[in-house]
Structure formats: structure tokens, C-alpha cells
């Protein structure tokens, strides 16, 4: 028996229009205990006023999130508007062993909200209230469907803001941010979601209400909040969050620096960080990404440049002006042949807008794109980019690079056309090679987008059997029946063995007992 490649394996699944008969991620419920019709009847009875979609035509727009390569029509979609309704839905689903897939705005890029064929999509979009802003404690208490942008807008009259700003901040919800531990353009200075959320209220799979973290800076007992943030909807459904707000810096200025080569830009990044600069954000775009973004935003990016660095400083005016001047000098020394520093807030926002829209703007260059998310040590940036370029040639698919250079978080954007029969498969193989490269360089397979379904296979590159087993035990401690988002985030041990991708540690295969083919 030959071992099917990952890509063709997925193609087979896609052709069947299902996730496969065997679960490949975290174990699930083993399937509902009654017919779809009975499940719908019980749900309708439990939450009478709640929209419950079940017609195939209504369900199809929910078949994928921001990652369209993976699609699955769910059994139904519920759009509740009260915690009591969510609780009832969870109760029914647990009783009937129906998988529940929580969903925010569906902007995720790893398929974390991919439906389950026999499961219910639990849309949290109607939970959009900002419950309280506490300027003295510098916190905001919000419902999970509130967008990052909405929090910052609501808190700006107090001179405060919510720091994590993923590219999709206008649309993505706090619930989804918590599920994925979202980062953003400014996490170099302000951290990820895990650093900016103080407390969450969750409903467990059993419908039990738990408060993790506290309104203070820590909580008694284990740091359950750290465990929940980034758990991709597997451990609980977030129904409320208290986030930390920061004083808005009086001034932020952005330098755009163009470089004649990707290598010189990468070197400049290392130099800035190494010399003790503490930029609020430090981003890089390569030529393909520059051109795509420029076409949408007309920010005045030099479209001929091989690489662009966007470097922001914020704080008091004295400090910022000081840093900008020094950084400009360093960038010029590192080979920048074009420098532009924002002199007004409008200009700064415009210059950022190109970067923030770079992913979808790539949609102008190809019908489909596949966004990777590996992280590597910063020192390996030049090597990584060089080798990605080679892979791009090998697979004959263009790759645009737009990423968080300061954090070493790469976002290679593989451009392809899904209507050409083999391109998706090629794109996936190329993506997997890029992630292998990240692990080889001492990095990890996902910096901020999460594993979802997309990187289940790649998890086997980064973790060995004992760690994966521990992940499954954690899941079991929260959700013994496995009804929450089954099939995501953590691969089943036999999947890693089947993919043949496990590390071979000290000459020993991690799963000697599992048959390989």
C-alpha cells in the first residue's frame, strides 16, 4: 500500500465532501446518538426563539472560514443571543453527543471554525455588547462577538486602547482572538492576546459556567487562562472576556524603508533589535506583496523595492522623535535606499493600511491564496526567505512574503488558482515544505493563526507522541465527551504515524507499535 501524500489525502476528503470517516484531530464524540431530524427537533424545542439554519442552501455559506481550501457543510447553524441559549444548546448537544463548533466572524486562517458534518456551528456573532469600560482599572468587559476595533473605539474617549491588532481587527471577534491567541502588528511591543486578557467566562462542554483568571493581575491556583487562550475552541465556549487596556501613546510614527534586497532588509531587522531598539511594530513585505498592497491602498510604497520594512515607534513625542532619527540612521546604514517617516496620523494610518490589507489585496493577483504562519528565530530570516524563494520556483507557484519581521513570524502567501486541477495540492505541499523549513531552522509551525485543521499534519513535525498525548489528556479534563470542536488543533497519534512525518528522536521512531505504509 502506498502512502498518499497529504495533499492528495485532502483531495480525497474534499471529493467526498467530508472530513473522513475517521477523526484525524482531537477525538470526537463518536457521532450523534440520534437522527439529524431528531437533533433539530430537540434544539428547536430547547431554544425556541433562536435562529437555527438547517437548509443546505443556508448552510453552505458557513462551510468554511477565512481558509476556503477546507469546506464542510454542518448539520445546522445556531445563532443564539443569550448565554442561557448557549447553555441550552450545549446541554442538548452533550446529551445527544452532537459536536459543537464555536464560530466568531469566520476570519480565521487555519480552519479552526471548519464545521463538522454531524455537528452544530455555534455562531457567537450576536454577542456584540461592550458591557463595561472601567477607565480606572483600565479594563473592558465585553461579549465574545465584539471586534477588536470596536473595543478600541469604545475606549478611546478615555485615552485607552486594546493592543492586539491582527490584520483582520476590523472584523475579527474577541472570542476568536482568544481561541487562536491572536497577535497582530504591534505584538512585538504589546504582546499577544494571552498578554492582554485578564479574565474570561466560559461555558464548559457540560454547560458549567467557569471564570478563568480574575479582574486582578493573577488568580489563585493554576493559570487556566493561559491554557484556554489559544485552545482553538476545544476547551470551552467563551461567553465574556475582561481585557486589559493600555494608555494610548500620545504619538506614533512609522518609518517605511525600502531595500534593494530581501537579505539586506532582514539584516537590518536583526541590527535594530540587537541594538536595543524597541519598536512597537516591525514588519516586512517583499516585492510581490508591496505591489499588491499598493494597488489597493495607493499608500505611496515604492513598487520597485525588493523589500519594505515598516518600523513604528510610539510613546512620548521626545522619545519617539529620538528613536525615529536613530532608527533612520541605522536603516540607511543597513542599505535602505528609500526612507519615508510619517509626519501625521493620517499618513501613518495610510502607510499601515497597505500592510494590513496585504493578504486580501493579494486576491487581486491570483484567485486564491494560502497563507502560512511559521515562526523562526530572527537570525534565520535571510536564509528562510532565500529558501522559500527556491521552493517557490520549484513548485512554480508565486509566494508573496508579508510578515512580522520583529517577531520572526513569517506569513508566506502562496498564490494559486483552485480551478486548475493540481494547484491546490501543489500549494499545500509547498506550504508543508515551508513549515518543515521553519521547524528545521529552530522555529514553530504556527505563530498566531493556530493549527485548526490546516496544520494538523504539521503538528507531528513539532511535537512527539508524549506531548500530543498530554494535549489529549488536557482536552479530556475539560471536555470528557469531546463535543467541543472535535477534529481540530491536536492530531490523533495514529494520524502522525500515517503521515510518516514524526520526528525520529535519537534513532527511535515515536510510535513503533503503529503500522506504517
Amino acid at each position, binding site marked *: 500500500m502506498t502512502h498518499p501524500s497529504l495533499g492528495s489525502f485532502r483531495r480525497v476528503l474534499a471529493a467526498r465532501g467530508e472530513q473522513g470517516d475517521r477523526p484525524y484531530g482531537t477525538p470526537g464524540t463518536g457521532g450523534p446518538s440520534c437522527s439529524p431530524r431528531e437533533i433539530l427537533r430537540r434544539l428547536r424545542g430547547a431554544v425556541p426563539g433562536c435562529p437555527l439554519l438547517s437548509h443546505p442552501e443556508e448552510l453552505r*455559506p458557513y462551510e468554511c472560514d477565512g481558509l*476556503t481550501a477546507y469546506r464542510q457543510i454542518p448539520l445546522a*447553524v445556531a445563532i443564539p443571543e443569550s448565554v442561557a441559549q448557549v447553555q441550552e444548546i450545549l446541554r442538548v448537544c452533550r446529551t445527544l453527543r452532537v459536536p459543537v463548533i464555536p464560530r466568531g466572524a469566520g476570519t480565521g486562517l487555519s480552519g479552526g471554525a471548519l464545521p463538522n458534518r454531524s455537528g452544530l456551528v455555534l455562531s457567537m456573532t450576536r454577542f456584540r455588547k461592550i458591557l463595561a469600560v472601567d477607565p480606572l482599572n483600565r479594563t473592558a468587559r465585553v461579549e465574545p462577538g465584539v471586534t477588536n476595533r470596536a473595543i478600541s473605539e469604545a475606549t478611546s474617549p478615555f485615552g485607552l486602547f486594546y493592543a492586539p491588532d491582527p490584520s*483582520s481587527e476590523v472584523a475579527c471577534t474577541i472570542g476568536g482572538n482568544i481561541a487562536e491567541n491572536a497577535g497582530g502588528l504591534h505584538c512585538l511591543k504589546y504582546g499577544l492576546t494571552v498578554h492582554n486578557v485578564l479574565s474570561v467566562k466560559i461555558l464548559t462542554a457540560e454547560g458549567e459556567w467557569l471564570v478563568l483568571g480574575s479582574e486582578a493581575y493573577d488568580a489563585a491556583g493554576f493559570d487556566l487562562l493561559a491554557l484556554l487562550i489559544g485552545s482553538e475552541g476545544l476547551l470551552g465556549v467563551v461567553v465574556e472576556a475582561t481585557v486589559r487596556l493600555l494608555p494610548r501613546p500620545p504619538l506614533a510614527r512609522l518609518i517605511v524603508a525600502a531595500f534593494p534586497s530581501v537579505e539586506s532588509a532582514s539584516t537590518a531587522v536583526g541590527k535594530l533589535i540587537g541594538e536595543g531598539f524597541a519598536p512597537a511594530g516591525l514588519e516586512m513585505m517583499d516585492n510581490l506583496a508591496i505591489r499588491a498592497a499598493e494597488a489597493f491602498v495607493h499608500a505611496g510604497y515604492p513598487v520597485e523595492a525588493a523589500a519594505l520594512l515598516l518600523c513604528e515607534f510610539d510613546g512620548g513625542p521626545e522619545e519617539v522623535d529620538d528613536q525615529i532619527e536613530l532608527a533612520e540612521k541605522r536603516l540607511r546604514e543597513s542599505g535602505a535606499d528609500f526612507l519615508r517617516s510619517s509626519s501625521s496620523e493620517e499618513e501613518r494610518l495610510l502607510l499601515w493600511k497597505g500592510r494590513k490589507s496585504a493578504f486580501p489585496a493579494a*486576491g487581486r493577483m491570483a*484567485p*486564491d491564496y494560502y497563507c502560512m504562519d511559521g515562526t523562526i528565530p530572527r537570525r534565520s530570516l535571510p536564509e528562510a526567505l532565500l529558501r522559500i524563494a527556491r521552493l517557490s520556483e520549484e513548485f512554480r507557484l508565486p509566494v508573496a512574503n508579508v510578515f512580522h519581521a520583529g517577531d520572526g513570524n513569517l506569513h508566506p502567501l502562496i498564490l494559486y488558482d483552485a*480551478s486548475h486541477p493540481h494547484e491546490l495540492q501543489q500549494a499545500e505541499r509547498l506550504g508543508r515544505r515551508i513549515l518543515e523549513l521553519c521547524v528545521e531552522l529552530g522555529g514553530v509551525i504556527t505563530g498566531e493563526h493556530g493549527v485548526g485543521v490546516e496544520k494538523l499534519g504539521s503538528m507531528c513535525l513539532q511535537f512527539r507522541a508524549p506531548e500530543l498525548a498530554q494535549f489529549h489528556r488536557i482536552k479530556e479534563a475539560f471536555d470528557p465527551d469531546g463535543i467541543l470542536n472535535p477534529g481540530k488543533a491536536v492530531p490523533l497519534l495514529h494520524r502522525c504515524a500515517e503521515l510518516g512525518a514524526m520526528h525520529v528522536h535519537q534513532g527511535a521512531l515515536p510510535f513503533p507499535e503503529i503500522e506504517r505504509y
Partner: protein
Amino acid sequence: MEVHLSHSLQGEAAAREGERLIRACVHCGFCLPACPTYQLLGDELDSPRGRIYLIKEVLEGRGGVIARAHLDRCLLCRACERACPSGVEYGRLVATTRGLLAAQSPRGPRDRLLRWLIRTIVPYPARFSRVVAVARWIRPVLPASLAAKLPTPPPAALPPVLHPHRRRMLLVPGCAQSVLSPATHLSLARVCDRLGIEPIFSPGSGCCGALFHHLGSEEAALRQIRRNIDLWWPELQAGAEALLIPASACALMVREYPDLLARDPAYADRARRIADAVKDPADLLLSEGLRLPIAPPGRAIAIHCPCTQQPGAVEALFRKLGIPLVPQPDSPACCGAAGAYALLQPRLSNQLRARKASALEAGAPAEILTANIGCQIHLASGSQLRVRHWIELIDECQTQAGASHGVPTRGEANGHGREACPAVQT
């Protein structure tokens, strides 16, 4: 996103165009927060991304009824297009595929009758004014929702005394606006006069075509558009330098004439030149009107920027003129009027209006100003405040400041005005 056209649609030009437009969408979801109905309902199906997906299903031959229901709920405000980083032409996609959708899932008799009534009455000022007059008369027995839509009859506006000027512009009051709010174009005419511009009222023009277009009657829309071009072209030939259209929705429609007539060699060129000649009254005042004396009102006002209006233009003008504006935190983009939407989707339309009205009223303004007749009537029926076109306030403030008409430059400089347009075009 990939689209696999169903066999039966592969020969259809509209389907292929729809496929091309959908392929620009990468399903990122940046459009979600921009969409008024998604804000209200939180359902993917009532978002631009979801509607594109529904259209995709129609093109793939596996949908129709549900797609139509959710597309009918779309306001066509096109706020999503401004938010889309991939450049998806959502409005064009909807318009292009409307026929295919209609073919796959025909409307029921009641729906068809309502749409026929709107198409047959509103775009024709003569018919519409008669219907409005009758409706006012029988107001007590009308359903409350409809009665609320009827504006109180405007005070018999004095036709402005205008003066001949060398510069001339064509002034095009929309069909609904000329009936429901004649004060708007009369104010615009006076403001023009003060700027030294003689407004020409195009005789006999009615609907810009938007009502037919949005209700899916492409043929009727094109007929009306060609008729308008025939009427306006001679005026442009005779030296009218621009088209001033107080209703922003009509102005936007006229700007889209070239797209709609691109394949009509007899009209394409004139359509383009007419579209190029459309001038936003706010832009006119921003470039030429700042010098006129003006007495700003004492109390701040609230501006509702219609979805069809260039964002920020009126606000910029008011700020430059020193007219105080109230802030509008959390203000949704659309008021829910959206042409015939207010009549076709009254429940959603009213919910949107309630949200918008409370945002507009939050800062306790003296009145609400807007730039489109649809929004004006709709908001007026949902707010205690006065709602009118912004040009009326400008006119009033200029009058109070004693602004006089521009220097007559043509013919007899004797101060004898000539009476301008009648209040209602027929």
C-alpha cells in the same frame, strides 16, 4: 474563490461575468462590519461575504430561494466595497446576476404586485404627485407604517427669483424629490444664483433610472436613461457646464450610465460625457461657495451621509463654513431607506432607521441634514427632529447673512428677475 458554473449556465454571459467577479473574493470577512444587515442580524447569510457565497451557489446550480431572500435584504449600500481589500465589485455582481436569480426562483404574486406598483408610480412625478396627494387626503385610513412615510405637505415654496448669468448648470431634481421635497431644488437654485450660476431646469426629466434598475427592470431602466440623455445632451451642447443633482442616489446612478450603456454605440459616448459632467453640490460649494456671506446657525446639527454620497464631503463643507456638527459615536452607515427598500423590507428598514436615528439624535442636534431624498423621508418618519437636505440650511444661512445674487452678466442688467421653474416638474 473558485466557482464551478453549472452546465446550464456555462453559456450565459451574465454567469461568466458573475464568476469573474466572485473570483476576486478571498473570503477574508473584512466586509462584515461594514454591512448594516450583518450588524443587525449577525447571520453570515446577511453579510456581503455570505451573499457572494449564495450567488456562487446559484451559479453552481444549487440554490435560489434562500439566496433571493437574503439578497432582497441587501440594501445595496455598497459600504462593503469600500471595505474590501480585494476589490470585489459587489454591486456589479448583484446587478449582473439578478436576472439569473430571478429565473431560478421567480417571485410570488404579492411581491411582484408591490414591485410593479413602485415601478409604475414613483418614477413618474406626475403620477407620483397625484398618488401622494390622494394618500394625504386618505391618510387617516392608511396603515400606520405607510402614513408615517408621507411627509407633511411642504409649505408652498416661493419660486426663487433668479437672474440670468453667463455660467449655467443643469439642475436635475429627482422624481421623488421633486414631489416630496420641492424646497430642496429651489434652495439649490437660489444658492446657484448667488454663485453667479444660472440653473437650468431640464424639462420633462423624471426618474434617473435607479428605481427600475434596483427593482430588476433593466429594460425600463435603459429606456429611461436614454430618454434622460436625449433631454440633457442639448443643454450640455448649449453650454451648461455641469449637472447638479441634489439627490445623491440619483447622482450616483447618472455616474453609472456609461457602465450600463457601454455596449450601446449610439449612447455610450454621450453617457460618459454626461456622467463626467455630474457635479456634487457640496463640491461646487467647497470650490466656489466659501466666499459667500453666511450666518451659521446657533445650534449644532447632525449630518447623515447617505451611502450614495461621497463620504465626508458635506461634513468638510460644513466645517469650513463654521456650522457646528454633533458627534455621532457608533453611528451605523445606512439609515435603511435604500430606495424602495423601505417599502419592500419594512421591518429591517425600520430597525436600521431606529439605530441610525438614535445615533444621530445622541448629540441633541437642532435638526438632521442629509443629501438624499430617500434617506430624508425615511429618517423623518422615524425621528422627532426635522430632517431635510443640507442645501436648504445653507440657503437659509446665506439668506440670513444677506447674500445677494451674483452679478448678472447676460442681457438686461436691470435687476428684474425672471421666474424660474415651477415647483413640480411634470
